[in-house]
């Protein structure tokens, strides 16, 4: 029943460093992270915390997405990246396949709910209902599924920062079970005041550019965006030239604290180890790790120690692309899956920006230069988050 491989037929990304995957790669190559003071989100903290916004207003995004501008930015971003992923796959008419859309997000239509609440709190009959009609995470997914013409399966996963990676896992498992031929899987999240203020209460936002895996790191920068891969079955993969294969994945729980990672990253370790095992790989087979690497003291230390333990024989090149895109929360697992799949296709190793001081507890440091033409066979992508949710994906050339 659970047989066959799952392939990556294509991918699409919109983030604060580019409106499509090509623009994002160009930003990596030019060493241009996307942090800036916010232009589109209206917050009391606008001048305090740099963020990595998609550099376009809702009107402009709506025009690209072919959606009304009053819809949640989460949906607009999602549609743009999902469409790019679909086109990259070269699969043609979506209706000829049993297609699913598994999208992750953490905020849903919260950007619009915030506007609604401003009025609603002055009187319970106030506030435009159309601002809350897409509040639920699932409602955002359906706007995009409908626009894409997906009918066979729609679902939404929300496991905080690991959401996007879990969307790929669920999609891949439905393909392996023979339920679907094709799944567009990944995640989306728009910046909102809700999340910005939430992370501020945890005192883990950096007032400068974040410095993942650097000893002087003091927190993360929030970003926004969306990223999707197109997962296909063996049968569909035969018709096209897939980028790579999703060879391993695993989900584990740290079960340590609601928001913090355990000091030794037990959940991280378990997820990475099980993903390798599923792919039938040894640690030394991994040619590049796309780190979760948020830039908080806690995450980078736990993740780094878990990697040191698993890759005791030598840590492969590793970097946090969040040093460019910021932490895009529910989207990050999807965005970084696309980066990882492209890394295999084009032999790319991404740089880690803003690294200067070696972390005292680690023996390895992140890669700081962009390079192409690397002979990569297998790439790992990590996503760890609140609620102890830890997921790890492994992509393979064959």
């Amino acid at each position, binding site marked *: 029943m659970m047989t066959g491989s799952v392939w990556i037929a294509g991918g699409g990304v919109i983030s604060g460093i580019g409106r499509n995957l090509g623009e994002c790669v160009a930003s990596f190559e030019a060493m241009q992270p996307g942090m800036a003071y916010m232009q589109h989100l209206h917050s009391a903290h606008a001048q305090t915390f740099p963020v990595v916004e998609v550099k376009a207003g809702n009107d402009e995004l709506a025009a690209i997405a072919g959606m009304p501008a009053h819809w949640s930015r989460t949906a607009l971003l999602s549609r743009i990246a999902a469409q790019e992923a679909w086109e990259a796959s070269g699969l043609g008419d979506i209706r000829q396949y049993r297609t699913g859309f598994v999208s992750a997000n953490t905020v849903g239509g919260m950007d619009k709910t915030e506007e609604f609440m401003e009025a609603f709190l002055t009187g319970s009959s106030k506030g435009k209902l159309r601002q809350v009609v897409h509040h639920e995470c699932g409602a955002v997914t359906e706007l995009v599924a409908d626009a894409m013409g997906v009918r066979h399966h729609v679902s939404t996963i929300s496991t905080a920062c690991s959401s996007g990676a879990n969307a790929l896992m669920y999609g891949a498992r439905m393909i392996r079970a023979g339920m679907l031929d094709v799944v567009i899987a990944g995640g989306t999240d728009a910046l909102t005041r809700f999340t910005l203020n939430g992370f501020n*209460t*945890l*005192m883990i936002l950096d007032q400068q550019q974040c410095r993942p895996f650097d000893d002087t790191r003091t927190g993360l920068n929030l970003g926004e965006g969306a990223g999707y891969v197109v997962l296909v079955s063996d049968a569909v993969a035969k018709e096209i030239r897939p980028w790579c294969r999703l060879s391993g994945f695993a989900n584990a729980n740290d079960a340590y*604290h*609601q*928001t*913090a990672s355990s000091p030794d990253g037990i959940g991280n370790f378990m997820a990475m180890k099980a993903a390798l095992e599923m792919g039938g790989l040894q640690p030394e087979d991994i040619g590049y790790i796309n780190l979760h690497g948020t830039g908080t003291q806690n995450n980078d230390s736990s993740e780094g120690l878990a990697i040191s333990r698993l890759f005791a024989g030598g840590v492969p090149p590793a970097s946090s692309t969040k040093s460019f895109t910021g932490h895009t929360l529910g989207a990050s697992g999807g965005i970084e899956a696309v980066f990882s799949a492209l890394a295999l296709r084009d032999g790319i190793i991404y740089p880690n920006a803003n690294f200067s001081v070696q972390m005292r507890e680690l023996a390895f440091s992140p890669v700081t230069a962009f390079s192409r033409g690397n002979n990569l066979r297998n790439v790992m992508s990590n996503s760890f988050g609140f609620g102890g949710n830890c997921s790890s994906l492994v992509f393979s050339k064959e």
Partner: protein
Amino acid sequence: MEKLMQDLKVQIIQQLNLQEVKPEDIGDDQPLFKEGLGLDSIDALELIVLLQQYHNIRIAKPEDGPNIFYSIRTMAEYITAEKAKQA
């Protein structure tokens, strides 16, 4: 100082929703975290807001928390010292 410590106990119970804890259950020198009152890192962040809300004191670095919030007395001493600086 005694009055401040008493106020702090009431404020902490309210802010942290410590059901079934009464002000007199909290000793002035009892550790607030772990083996003492059993508070954790999320509570530490709540206490930072408590200082801001009730005492108009801002703590910029969460890593200063453990020393300031060791006990009711250390909190009261910190508040008194900060108030003196503000005056």
